[in-house]
């Protein structure tokens, strides 16, 4: 009995930080699904299992639902078994599984609508679908009853969706699943879904493959309580599991298959030393493994560049990052003047230099203790409050980004009036 175990496709998910590229990010996942089905066919898998959260929500648009069904229909030789998860629970009319086309799917597509055992290639899928978004009940409990019904009749693979019940690592109402749920129910394998990182429990019998297409920059991190070697980093790409159950009672053979098409890379750039910074970025972004068209990049800009450096950096970044699939530039720089500019400013425009000092002091203060500051630079709190009030502003709303913007505005306007 051999099958592909996938989970957490989250089709139709939101990407708020990517603006107009969000649609492109969503469009990647159906393509990844198609490739994974092709892999299942290539592996001659007996089944393609989705252990919950095929869709991000029960109310995704019909066009997406039909697109996914069309994908499954394109692979009639790959039996598909879908378990409703906590994002797309079987919660009655209106949910995806009660609407066309999944309400009456083709013969090779099975939606687990209730806890039941389903024969597959001499073995059994024992499924415990979710019917609600939250529940304190362990969904794997139903699997033990099902396992008794089919005892001694080939390998048994459970399918369900929930949080591994690691102490302090899960919410009590997030469908907690016992860490030895597979052994407890007498299963040869438990296909689990919910978390988006590769996780292995219960001596290798309980696997959570994570999302097939990564959706964030955070690298995978072994969960606390997991046995050494069981849980590994999700790596740069998404995964599914190729599972082979040779016989009832035999240990499962689980092979991670990389499926993700996009890499999510986060880089830092320290702008003041622009030449060195650019060299490092070029090295990272232009290496042999560089694949901008399939990379989602987050570049965090730091430091206190002067306007000249900043403009040079912006120009270079516009050219260098243009080819990336999607990118986020997280600007945490603090606009500054060059040494020469600062000296000239202090000499020729003492009042403006004083204003810049005020901004520096204020920004430093905001970065530290914000409660009841005694003064900001030479300004007293009362003066700061009064100055802000002149234009109906509240100084307490002046956060770090405000001061950064203020410095940038000041530098740019200063350059405008002096040019």
């Amino acid at each position, binding site marked *: 009995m051999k099958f592909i175990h996938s989970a957490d496709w989250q089709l139709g998910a*939101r990407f708020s930080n990517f603006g107009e590229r969000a649609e492109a990010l969503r469009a990647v996942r159906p393509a990844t699904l198609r490739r994974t089905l092709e892999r299942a066919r290539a592996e001659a898998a007996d089944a393609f299992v989705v252990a919950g959260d095929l869709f991000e929500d029960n109310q*995704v648009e019909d066009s997406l639902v039909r697109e996914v069904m069309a994908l499954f229909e394109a692979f009639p030789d790959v039996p598909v078994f879908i378990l409703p998860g906590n994002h797309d629970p079987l919660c009655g*009319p*209106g949910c995806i599984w*009660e609407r066309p086309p999944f309400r009456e799917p083709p013969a090779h597509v099975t939606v687990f609508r209730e806890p039941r055992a389903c024969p597959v290639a001499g073995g059994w899928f024992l499924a415990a679908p979710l019917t609600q978004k939250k529940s304190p009940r362990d969904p794997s409990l139903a699997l033990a009853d099902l396992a008794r019904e089919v005892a001694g009749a080939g390998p048994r693979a459970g399918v369900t969706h929930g949080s591994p019940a690691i102490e302090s690592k899960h919410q009590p109402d997030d469908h907690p699943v016992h860490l030895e749920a597979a052994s407890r129910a007498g299963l040869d394998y438990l296909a689990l879904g919910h978390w988006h990182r590769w996780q292995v429990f219960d001596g290798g019998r309980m696997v959570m493959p994570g999302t097939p297409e990564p959706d964030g920059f955070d690298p995978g991190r072994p969960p606390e309580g997991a046995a050494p070697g069981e849980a590994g980093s999700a790596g740069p790409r998404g995964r599914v599991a190729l599972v082979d159950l040779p016989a009832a009672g035999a240990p499962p053979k689980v092979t991670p298959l990389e499926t993700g098409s996009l890499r999510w890379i986060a880089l830092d750039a320290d702008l003041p030393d622009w030449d060195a910074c650019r060299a490092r970025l070029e090295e990272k972004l232009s290496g042999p493994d560089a694949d901008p068209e399939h990379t989602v990049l987050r570049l965090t800009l730091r430091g206190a560049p002067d306007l000249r450096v900043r403009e040079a950096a912006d120009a270079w970044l516009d050219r260098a990052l243009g080819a990336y699939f999607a990118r986020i530039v997280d600007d945490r720089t603090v606009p500054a003047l060059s040494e020469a500019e600062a000296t000239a400013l202090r000499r*020729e425009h003492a009042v403006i230099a004083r204003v810049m000092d*005020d901004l520096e002091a204020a920004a430093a203060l905001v970065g530290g203790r914000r409660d009841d500051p005694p003064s900001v630079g030479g300004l007293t709190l009362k003066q700061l409050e009064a100055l802000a009030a002149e234009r109906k502003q509240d100084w307490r709303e002046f956060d770090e980004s*405000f001061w950064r913007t203020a410095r940038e*505005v000041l530098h740019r306007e200063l350059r405008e009036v002096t040019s």
Partner: protein
Amino acid sequence: MILRRIRLSRVACFLEGVETDPLDPGLNILAANNEEGKSTLVRAAARALFDRYSGKSQEIRNLQPAGTDLGPRVTVEFSNGREVFRLEKQFLQSAGSRLYRKNNDKWDLLAEGDKADRRTLELAGGEQPGAGATKPQHWGFLRYLWARQEEPAAWPSWDGNAGGRVRATLARVEVDPVADSLEAALTGRFHECFTPNGQVKRNGPLHALTGELEALEAELAEVAAGRLRLEEQQEAFGRLSEELRVLRGEKERTREEADRLIEAARRAESASREVRTLQKALAEADERLQAVDRDAEKRKRTESEQAANREKTEAAEARVERLQRIRRELEERLARVEREGRGVEQAVRRLKAEQAGVQLRLRIAAARESLAEKKELLEKIEAREAELQAKERDRAGLPRLSGKRLEALRALAGEIRDLKNRLAAAGLAVSVTAAQDRTMETDTPEEGRRSHRLEGGKSADFAAARELVVHLPEWGRIEIRSGAAEVREKQQALETAKENLAAALRELGTERFEDLEVACARARELDADLKNLRQGIGDVLGRFGSADDLRRTVREEEAALGKLLESNAAGDGPDGCDPDELRRRDRENERKRQSLEEEHAAKQREAEQLRRDLTANSRECGEAEGERNRLRTAAVVLETRLKEMAERYGDGGLEEARRRAGREFVQAEARLEEAKRLLPEDWEALPGRRDRAVKAASEAGAEHDRRREALLRMEGEMRQRGSEGLYSREVRLREKIALKREEAGALRRRSGAAGFLATLLGFRKREAFERVLAPLEEQLSVQFGELTGRRERRVFLDENLQVTGVGRDRESGIPFESLSQGAREQLLLALRAAVALELAEEEPQVLILDDVLVNTDPTRQQRVLDFLESLARRVQILVLTCHPDRYRGVGQRLALHPVREDETGTPG
């Protein structure tokens, strides 16, 4: 630059050449009367220093002597501290310019023409205008150091190069145009999105973004609400589905229960009908048995009643007989008593007739007595009325007037008398008041010599017709004569009074007032008599209102007496018996009558009692007869009943019939018990239970169907809503909102930061100026204090170095415009002095004061002189004044000396 000498020729009033004395580096006083050319001298020097020699503007032409077209010539010697220069310039006709520098005692030509002008301008620190003549703003420091006569008491602005240099020098900080531009640019950035009071600017980019954001958020809220509704519906659907499942089970269970109870109730109904039939048969058997028992009992009871009836009939007949005998005795006694009563009644009637005759005669006697009394009274009254009428006739002949009017007439008569007396004494009236009690004498033709006693302090009047002689003891004789005017007045008043009195007397029917008074006295007497008479008649009348009432009463009593006499005559009774005898007989009759009436009443009471007894006896007798008859009838009925019963049961008789009915009852009872044993225990409750179960099944079915329909409707809605892709819409909206929010946030942040920066920059600029202004304000305040003698006041400047006010602090100071003209002049002098002192640190400066302290009082003038002498140690001062007395004893006096034409210097 300081001035050393000025020469003019063909300039305004100086047609011939004039020259000043050499100017001292300190204080110089040029005193002259008005229009003698003091100001012209300085103005021409300024034109020479700052205007091009080739200029032909009106300002240059104004230098020409009036009515000529001569070319004005001006020579100015000046030094910049190290070197001495001489500028010779001629305008308009044969215009030219030459600049010399002193070299030992010789003048070396430095430049000519335009070069000379440019070099001079550099040395004087002036500027050239684009066209036309120069204006004060082109005169370098002289713009601030030359207080012109016609200049208003205000400080010129600090614009231009010289102004900037002065400000920079004074405040030790150069005005930073970059900071100003930056502030303006930042303010502009702020105002792109916000109004001056911090509101989001309508139609601005931030306003547009906010609007878009609000629209997106509204749409998102709608979509999210739709999602939430669907999720709630899904949750409710699960709950309702479970409830529907429970209801379906209940529906089936209640239907089964109803069917079971319907069958059980049907069987129980059949069994119960059989029981009811047997119960009916048993009841009929029982009825028959009871009927036989009732008949046996009835016969026994009838026979017993027949015996008792017989005894009662005999007793009733004996009672009827006894009562009839008593009745006859009562009737006899009643007849006797009624007879005796009628005899007593006749005796009473006779006695009453006799008593009425006696009483009539008594009333006649009383009527006669009363009539006699009233007739006597009437006679008395008629006599008094006759007397009263006689007096009333007398009174009618006398006048009728009130006491008030009589008193008025009396006063009028008195006035006439007085007037006559006064008329007799008209023209002479003397009032004498003695200081002490005195005696004096008067002598008049009317009264002759009379003595008078005078009380001290009181006046005494004396009058006479024509002549009055007063003899005063120890003093002599005074003779007083009168005129006629008073006589005429008194006579006229007398005539008027007489006419009035005569008219009043005529009206009253008399001619003399004395007759009137006599008549009035007589009338008063008669009025008193009449009153007494009327009072007497009233007393006599007593209870009668009037004599007529009395006469009417007499007539009525006479008529009544006549009627009584007629009655007595008709009764044929005696008339004229003694009333006392009559009264005694009347009392005797009364006693007899009362005795007879009591006897008659006793007889009537006895007869009444006998009648009641007779009535009671009749009733009792009737009852006894009725009872006897009823008993006789009952005996006949009982006899008939016994006969009928014997005929009904025939030969077998009553006992045989009873045995047969008993057997039939026992058999029916046994059949009923058997049928009851076959009925279920609660067979009576089964129909009710069956009905309840049917109703419950119906209700459960209806509830189930209703819920099922609602669930189907909900399912339809959920399917419809589920296919709307609400989550996908929400995702896209949230992504758009995040973009717009970031955009709006950045815009708001940038504009807000620009606004705050502009505010902060303005604040720092103000702070910088305030910091550098403080020493200047301090210096100015000291100098102003020295000038005015009021050192407690401070002078305050604004950021443009304009005087804002004078006082103890910046906020409460007196504004410059509100100061007096003198104070403003002194303050401006102090400011010019401060400017000159500061500028003199770098090169010598000249301060020109052209009649600017004309409003300074003498006390302050001395302080001004002290101040100028002190200032002159570091600054050259040229005072032009038409008040030489104010500057006596200070500085160097300048005079204008005529010079020959060739000595003025003629530029080549």
